[in-house]
């Protein structure tokens, strides 16, 4: 099967007074039709910028996609002109943003906001579009859609607004939906509702989904494959199962160790309360990235080579034979066993 989306060596930089911020630096990944891909990392690691670059929504200036290729459905999105981009955006690929409070227009009714896209991209009449919009709202679980569609965004709660955003994203039968932290602003019980809804809708409609999040639990539950990002680069990729059971990059290991989990043992073998193992230090400044591996300063396993040469993504042994597992660490191979025993000893 050919991939639906191929991102090759994508570079998006921001040119600021302090210097060039390499928000996304040489990022390569692909998305298969219908799959759910997780993009995980902390704030500032470039995960949102990489998604915005795909939609060509980077504010220019100061931002600019300076290099790379984004092949989507047979064409290089970075080369098409803005008119063509407008036809792709919303129709073939759609986005669900983090903040349901600010991503809807407060002075227009839902009717106007939903039918606009459908009329524009699908060439339908106002009445047909309205009928479609009502069906969509019903589909995303909004009760009484005929009445609700005439209301304004402030009359909806956070969870309901996010449902509206999903309806809007689905309205033109896209092939790819990018969800940028879709549930971070929502409460736990509502989060579960929204994620279940997105997963079931994309599964039944065969839409590919990129979930961008910092929540490792969300990715574990919903993604097929996972990309872990750090300081503008992808540092590890594999099937969700591989990433969680056999992490090979010190940062991924550190992330998994540092979050408290519901299934974690609370005492160690001697009966003392278990401690979390934080990743010491701070993420690096993207203007002045250190030479070599950008995680080196915080890394427990750093060696001399890490200071001089940045490790590329290298294939590591995968227990899940089908899906290649890659990690950008000089010591991935030996790390496998060590890292896990470390995690087990403290968890």
């Amino acid at each position: 099967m050919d991939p639906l989306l191929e991102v090759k060596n994508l570079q998006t930089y921001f040119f600021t007074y302090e210097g060039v911020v390499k928000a996304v630096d040489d990022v390569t990944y692909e998305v298969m039709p219908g799959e759910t891909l997780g993009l995980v990392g902390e704030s500032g690691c470039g995960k949102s910028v990489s998604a915005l670059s795909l939609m060509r929504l980077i504010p220019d200036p100061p931002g600019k996609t300076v290099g790379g290729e984004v092949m989507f459905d047979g064409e290089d999105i970075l080369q098409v002109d803005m008119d063509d981009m407008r036809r792709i955006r919303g129709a073939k690929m759609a986005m669900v943003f983090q903040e349901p409070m600010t991503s809807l227009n407060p002075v227009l009714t839902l009717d106007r906001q939903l039918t606009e896209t459908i009329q524009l991209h699908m060439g339908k009449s106002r009445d047909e579009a309205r009928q479609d919009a009502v069906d969509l709202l019903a589909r995303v679980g909004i009760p009484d859609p005929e009445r609700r569609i005439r209301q304004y965004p402030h009359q909806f709660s956070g969870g309901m607004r996010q449902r509206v955003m999903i309806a809007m994203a689905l309205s033109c039968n896209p092939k790819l939906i990018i969800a940028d932290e879709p549930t971070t602003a929502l409460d736990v019980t509502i989060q579960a509702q929204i994620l279940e809804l997105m997963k079931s809708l994309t599964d039944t409609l065969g839409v590919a989904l990129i979930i961008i999040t910092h929540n490792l639990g969300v990715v574990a539950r919903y993604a097929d494959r996972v990309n872990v990002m750090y300081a503008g680069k992808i540092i590890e990729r594999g099937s969700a199962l591989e990433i969680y059971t056999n992490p090979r990059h010190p940062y991924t290991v550190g992330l998994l160790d540092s979050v408290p989990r519901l299934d974690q043992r609370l005492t160690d073998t001697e009966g003392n309360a278990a401690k979390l193992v934080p990743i010491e230090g701070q993420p690096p400044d993207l203007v002045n990235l250190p030479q070599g591996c950008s995680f080196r300063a915080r890394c427990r396993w750093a060696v001399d080579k890490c200071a001089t040469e940045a490790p590329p993504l290298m294939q590591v042994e995968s227990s899940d034979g089908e899906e290649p597992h890659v990690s950008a660490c000089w010591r991935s191979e030996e790390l496998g066993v060590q890292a896990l025993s470390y995690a087990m000893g403290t968890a």
Partner: protein
Amino acid sequence: MTTAEMPQTSETQPGHGDVLLDVKGLKMYFPVTSGILFQRAVAYIKAVDDVNFTVRRGETLGLVGESGCGKTTTGRCILRLYRPTDGEIWFDGTEIANAKTGQMRAMRRQMQIIFQDPYSSLNPRMTAGNIIGEPLAVHGLVNNKREYRERVAELLNNVGLNPYMADRFPHEFSGGQRQRIGVARALSVDPSFIVCDEPVSALDVSIQAQIINLLEDLQERYDLTYLFIAHDLSVVRHISDRVAVMYLGKIVEVADRNAIYENPQHPYTRALLSAVPIPDPILDAQRERIILSGEVPSPLNPPSGCVFHPRCPLATDDCTRVNPEAREVMPDHIAACINVPGYGAY
């Protein structure tokens, strides 16, 4: 009912009981007003409605719930940052719900708070040293400049910052470092009790663990008692000894940490726990998943009977009429649900 037995402990043995903080029948109603010149209350938002709980000396009580459930308001009432509408708050044998401002100022040497947002809770025009040192001056805890500087340096050290950072302004610090300043400020008066109001939710995952470990170390070193308010159930499980779950202004379940997470009784607690994904695809797939329908109702117009009944999978007709009070359903395990086996048996 444990909560009914508590008053004797705190009144008869001030300062020597097992219980440091005893909250009884706490209510905090915010008026919704109408009219321009003569504002009159047309309705009340029942942010906290008849809440009872105790915090034992040296323990961490986790207070969890979704946004708008009243957990932060509860914490702020305890510090008397709000004047409660009704109820009693016994702190170390003293009733403080009706204490006067002057009395309260003295009390705040004993009780402090760490706020959620490390960006808005530090004055941007004060240096880190002055932010941490101001309480020392207010409470007259130092005699001269030299003592002041030494104490500030010591506090910075204790929270893992360098003493030379005292002259920097908040914008020069990262989120995690700012939260450390907030912790140092709370520690400056040597309190025995700290309300931690979502202290890690604004921080990045890799930094959260640093702050959690710091709070745990300080608790051990200074014998602190924490009321740990958070919406992240995994964090609360990690840090708490006992956990109280709130929903729409009421406490629906209180129990020992292990009891709550391994054997939750209230249907809301069960749903809340099942909604949290675990970062392990195999384990996660095996768990029971309860997806609650609907959303939290408005505290302006809460449902009749049990406030949870419109979303509850176990709701019966009785639930729409009876407001269940929190009772012991097992030894040391309190739940407010008439359908929990054992409710009313104790």
